[in-house]
């Protein structure tokens, strides 16, 4: 399998605090990687640097062989919209849009006509167990249902990598497990890689492998980064 996303010697400081102190990481095509670590260890900063949300102070990020950390904000924005998908703990759905339009929104932002975007969005509902919830608004969905809509929205553009930041943090154990199952299966089914930031070992257990971050460094050396 080829590396889809590679981070090399990633460094980031916030004032005097070292958030990342030279992290190397590589994610292969279709692979699900969990990033674990205690609060303040730098796992969210690592995700933000890999996803082009934040520019690292040092090091490089490559997506499918192309360097992305040197791109301008506009290009990184476009990249996040088209090549990446995101699932957060809460709050990512627009409360005033029905579920299907929430899912269709990334397609519309990419220029797909509304009717076609909504049609494509609807195709995701049945496989994710959201049948007949298309017209519901986020406030009318349970926490688990809302997270599944968020998964559909992350995958609808057929991204190369899906980033999930504590995707089950706001859910109970059982719903969290079910959501992780759907997230991992749907991502693999779409040949996308998955990077999950979590501090819950039960969530990490769904992934192919786990890397641990402590004080801005990986505890396990990543194989193949310098290959």
């Amino acid at each position, binding site marked *: 399998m080829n590396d889809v996303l590679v981070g090399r010697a990633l460094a980031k400081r916030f004032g005097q605090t070292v958030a990342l102190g030279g992290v190397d990481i590589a994610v292969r095509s279709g692979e699900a990687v969990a990033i674990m670590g205690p609060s303040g260890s730098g796992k969210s900063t690592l995700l933000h640097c890999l996803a082009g949300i934040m520019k690292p102070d040092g090091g490089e990020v490559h997506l499918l062989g192309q360097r992305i950390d040197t791109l301008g904000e506009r290009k990184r924005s476009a990249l996040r919209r088209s090549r990446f998908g995101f699932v957060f703990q809460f*709050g990512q759905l627009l409360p005033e849009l029905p579920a299907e339009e929430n899912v269709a929104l990334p397609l519309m*932002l990419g220029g797909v006509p509304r009717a076609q975007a909504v049609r494509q969005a609807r195709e995701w509902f049945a496989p994710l167990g959201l049948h007949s919830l298309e017209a519901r608004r986020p406030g009318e969905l349970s926490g688990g249902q809302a997270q599944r809509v968020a998964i559909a929205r992350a995958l609808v553009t057929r991204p190369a990598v899906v980033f999930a930041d504590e995707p089950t943090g706001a859910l109970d154990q059982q719903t969290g497990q079910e959501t992780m199952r759907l997230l991992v299966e749907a991502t693999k089914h779409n040949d996308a890689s998955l990077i999950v930031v979590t501090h819950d070992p039960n969530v990490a257990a769904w992934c192919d492998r786990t890397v641990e971050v402590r004080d801005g460094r990986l505890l396990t050396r990543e194989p193949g980064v310098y290959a």
Partner: protein
Amino acid sequence: MNLDLTWRLLKGGGRRGLLGTWLTLGAVAVATALLLFAVAANSAFQARAERGAWRNPVPAASGAVAVEASRYDFVRDRTITVVDLAALPGRTPEPPPGLPRFPAPGETWLSPALAELAEELPAGELAERYPGRKGVLGDEALVFPGELVAVVGHAPDSPAMTAQRTDDWVVAKPPVKVASLAGQPSEDAEAYQVLSLIASVLMVVPLLVFGGAAARLTVARRDQRLAALRLVGATPGQVVAMTVAEAVIVALAGALAGAVVFALAVPLLAGIEMQGGPWFAGDLFPSPLVLAAVLVAVPLLVGLSAVAGLRRVVVSPLGVAKRETPPGMRFVRVLALLAVLAAFPLLTRGTSVSIIAVALALAFLCINLAGPWVVGMIGRITAASARGPARLLAGRRLVDDPRAAWRTVSGVALTGFVAGFLGLLSPTGFGDEVTGPPQLRVTAPAGQVTEVAAQARERLRASGVQATVKPVKNVVVAALGSAADDATLDRARTALAELVPGRTPTTQRDDRRFGIQILADVRVGTIVVLSVSFLVAIASSGITATSSILDRRQTYGLLRLAGTPLEVLDRARRTETLVPLTVMGGGAILVGAFCAVPFMIGGMNVVGTVTLVACVVVGFAGVIGAGALSRPLLRSVTADPAPRPD
């Protein structure tokens, strides 16, 4: 304990919490200052009416002590009010305001501005009209600073106090026996009070809407914090008490700041000329009672508005966490507006001013009631027809919270109503310039026109004024020739002073002066009302745009993080405002024009049209500008790479 916790929450609200607090404070300050202005305008006109009351004699039923008459004179294109007074034999009347004693026959007292002018100009142009000057009138005698007033003492049997004046060209008060010089406000002064009352109604309603918007500015933020408090066991009563306390603390500070802003603005406002002059600053200050009422009412209204916004939290601790499909607005809101519009011509048929003011206020409130329904409808149409994400977001947001969207555009919509109303009301017909050389005319007593003409000829010749004098029916006309300038005209006026006792020789322009003055005052009033309305509208839309960003910062942040361009978010915000603004602004102008039809004098005029067009342009530009000002805030809240709920 509640107050202590509230104060801690207020202080520890963080940078954005503080921004919201400051914005609320600023908005309340602006609203209070403008509200004080609207209230002060009424008390100022009332003060003016009372100041001028002594010149408007009330016939004595019994116990007359003096004879009083008044007329107008003119110098250098300015009006002089001349009050003729005579004590009845054996009586010692109280002096009028601003005079140390009642003037004896032959004595003249001039206002400071008139005395100064009499010193400046050659005696033959002004001073000789008022011989026997004894002193200067105090401010109490004047309607406005710089007013030209002369008080002339006569014997009760002198011709000036016995001649009739009712057929004069310029409206004058004939001699009247009075028991005191208290007088009563003139009809003109009362008409101005009525107009100022209508203007106040037009200004106060948008201000109330604005106040509501300001109160809700941070309510979403409080929503979340107070919902958390409910979750840890605070009772609904405690939550309400804390909300009221927080809103009232901020609103009271805002109201006090607004009162200071108003006080600082008084010298500027006093310069707005009405009825021919500026204002005494003291007249513009509302009474302490009114001031206290405003300072109590504003925080109270803001507190009530905040409580209304928090009903959901009080009902359920999870109230704000759940966002459900909002219930549709009831069509009855629109029916209310239609009913008032249908009844409007009937309501205004009566001449009672209070009924007209109530009808206007009703129409205003109904527009405010129907507004959110129409905005919701516009949202549905916008969302259904949207092809791109920006319009879809805008449309859905309008449907989701039509009241919030209405708050953004209501200011301009209500101003549109004012503009539509006043646009049709500007009277025409007084503005025509008088052309040709000046002619002074004075009505002669019956049967004496030839003698008076001969005297006029003689007096003018003696003062070196070239003029052709001839009688026309019972009027003596002195044509001054095309070379006559202002100085010549004033010399001729001075020469002809007291030619006919109690009567002033006037030009055609003098005769139209009062009509021109009313027109000018209506225009100034219109501009003032529209300026206030626009200030409110633009501040309103700025405030709501800002609060909308603060309320939705987490969603905006996550959308940006997922790659949504800032332009799309900004375009959605703009569409969210512009679409309802276009529909509601246009609709309100039409409703305003419809309401003005019963009062219309003549047809639509150029000034009205220009005012309307200017309103539309300034309103749109202002609202877009105010929205654009909040863009840096949008950029700042979406720049946070990891938005978290507060």
